[in-house]
């Protein structure tokens, strides 16, 4: 098992190096950072001096090495647009994004799984059909449309919830949280619902179809023939067998929440990394874009690693096969 995990970690590192390389290429080939930092009327000599001081005239490999070294230390340089260290900008914005993504993930899992199990077991019930039909709306409406609809109803018409921002935040060390104030809670409702809806639908539908699949298996029939109560069959036997695919989708789900949060943050003016990223794109603010790319990739890779390890916990068959192959047998 250790060997399997080491192998996974190694893969994760490899992926990160590739991502770092891509974001490094961004630096070198998208736009000219010097253009962004000096005015239009700067002379050629001024520009060259600037290039030298930024190390932009060094050999490619040296530059990439320096980039990697800095990236590992969380150093991504100075934002062209805001003229502040990228690391500081990101760490200011990260709590907002992570709180939004965390709230959405919990919402989509806590609603998606029970609804999926329910509609899987009560296959023909009217309630199941209604839930499924409604969930179709969840997948077919684009995120920004849902966001705008919510704003229209709850902010513009009813005036219950704020249409933008995080409300009042409290500083806990470097972390700023919105969960300690009423306005913070109010502010996160609409963005997290908007973000969660699509993922919740995916989880619901996946859990349902996995449940239907598992309910047809011989071991469920045999569990019935042994006279086990339904509750034990549904949750103990059937649901547990849906966990491997469900864990996979939840892992992907958290990753895509981060990606989709760009849109949600823009719609709700949520002061997170996604919003920062969109503004950086508009300005070709390469250091911010590169840092965001590397960070999001790091989060994805970490989640995947975590998911791979969870498989082990859930499925004993994997434990054996992997230890056998890791031990060099067969």
């Amino acid at each position, binding site marked *: 098992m250790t060997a399997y995990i080491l192998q996974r970690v190694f893969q994760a590192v490899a992926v990160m190096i590739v991502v770092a390389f891509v974001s490094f290429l961004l630096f070198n080939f998208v736009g000219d950072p010097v253009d962004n930092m000096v005015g239009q009327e700067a002379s050629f000599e001024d520009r060259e001096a600037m290039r030298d001081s930024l190390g932009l005239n060094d050999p490619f490999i040296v530059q990439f090495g320096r980039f990697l070294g800095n990236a590992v230390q969380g150093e991504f340089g100075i934002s062209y647009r805001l003229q502040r260290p990228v690391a500081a900008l990101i760490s200011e914005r990260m709590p907002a994004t992570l709180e939004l993504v965390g709230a959405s993930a919990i919402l989509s899992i806590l609603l998606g799984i029970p609804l999926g199990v329910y509609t899987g077991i009560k296959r023909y019930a009217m309630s199941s059909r209604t839930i499924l039909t409604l969930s179709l709306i969840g997948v077919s409406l684009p995120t920004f449309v849902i966001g705008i609809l919510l704003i229209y109803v709850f902010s513009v018409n009813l005036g219950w919830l704020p249409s933008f921002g995080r409300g009042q935040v409290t500083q806990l060390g470097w972390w700023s949280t919105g969960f300690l104030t009423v306005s913070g809670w109010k502010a996160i409702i609409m963005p997290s619902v908007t973000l969660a809806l699509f993922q919740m639908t995916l989880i619901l539908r996946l859990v349902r179809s996995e449940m239907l699949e598992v309910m047809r298996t011989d071991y469920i029939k*045999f569990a019935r*023939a*042994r006279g086990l109560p339904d509750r*034990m069959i549904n949750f103990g036997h059937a649901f547990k067998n849906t966990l491997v695919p469900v864990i996979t989708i939840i892992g992907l789900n958290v990753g895509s929440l981060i990606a989709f949060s760009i849109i949600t943050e823009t719609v709700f003016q949520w002061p997170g990394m996604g919003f920062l990223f969109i503004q950086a794109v508009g300005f070709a603010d390469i250091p911010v874009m590169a840092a965001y790319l590397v960070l999001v990739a790091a989060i994805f890779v970490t989640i995947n690693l975590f998911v791979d390890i969870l498989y082990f916990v859930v499925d004993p068959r994997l434990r054996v096969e992997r230890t056998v192959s890791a031990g060099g047998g067969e």
Partner: protein
Amino acid sequence: MALLEVENLRVEFPTRRGSLLALDDVSFQIEEGEVLGVVGESGAGKSLTGAAIIGLLEPPGRVTAGEIKLEDRRIDNLSYEEMRKIRGEKIGAIFQDPLTSLNPLYTIGRQLIETIRVHMDLTQEEAKGRAIDLLGEVGIPAAERRIDSYPHEFSGGMRQRVVIALALCANPRLIIADEPTTALDVSIQAQIIALIKKLCREHKTAVMLITHDMGVIAETADRVAVMYAGRIAEVGPVRRVVKQPKHPYTVGLMGAIPMVGHDVERLTQIDGAMPRLTEIPRGCSFNPRCPKVFARCREERPELMHAGRNAEAACWQFDKEGRRG
């Protein structure tokens, strides 16, 4: 009083184009401790009969007529919850494929213990003790250690032994074994059959042994019911049925068992194939394939009738009054 009595059982599958009659007028009995073999081609309705008895017909299939009585009490009209208590406790079941009958995510011990505790008032420790005893009984070596293994750590034959232990957890009066060896290696089949036979003799458990292997039936069963197209063609003691089959279909089957382990389904002794449920002919459903067919067979459907000593067959040949042809 027989342990199990099935009377005029009818099972239908409602479909858009009318109802499919999958079992029609099936009647038989199983005595305490008796092994009843049920034989017939694939699709004859053997599994459906077993499923109807344990109340696990797959919807939309349902019992539309007849009665099933266990120990003189009707069980075909019980609620799901009442029937659940009978499953496992009074009637155990063993299915065809041991590789897929066990939940892959739980140790066999956990599956045994949960089954024991659902049906018997035992503590975890007591149930574990019983589970180890059962595993020993079905021939799993080093049961105390193996109880913590997962299904995939056992071979097919060993898994089927675990399945048998699971069926025996609460000491049921009847075991329905639906092709318990079909999925297994030929070399292991005889061992598993011998094990079922031995255990049921020791526990005085009756067995409904469903198979299309006439060799297995000849060796194991006390009586045989031969099924054809959702009906019973012939019933009788195994020796009589093997030596003097009455129904022309059984005659064909017997002519086709040169050796143990041979598959009835692959035999070509009887021309043609069993009709599908939608194409069952008028009269006797076997008439298009029957070498002894006469006019009445194409008109009227025969019930099981007396066909000599120890013999009942659904064939007009044996109808004393109306015999023609």
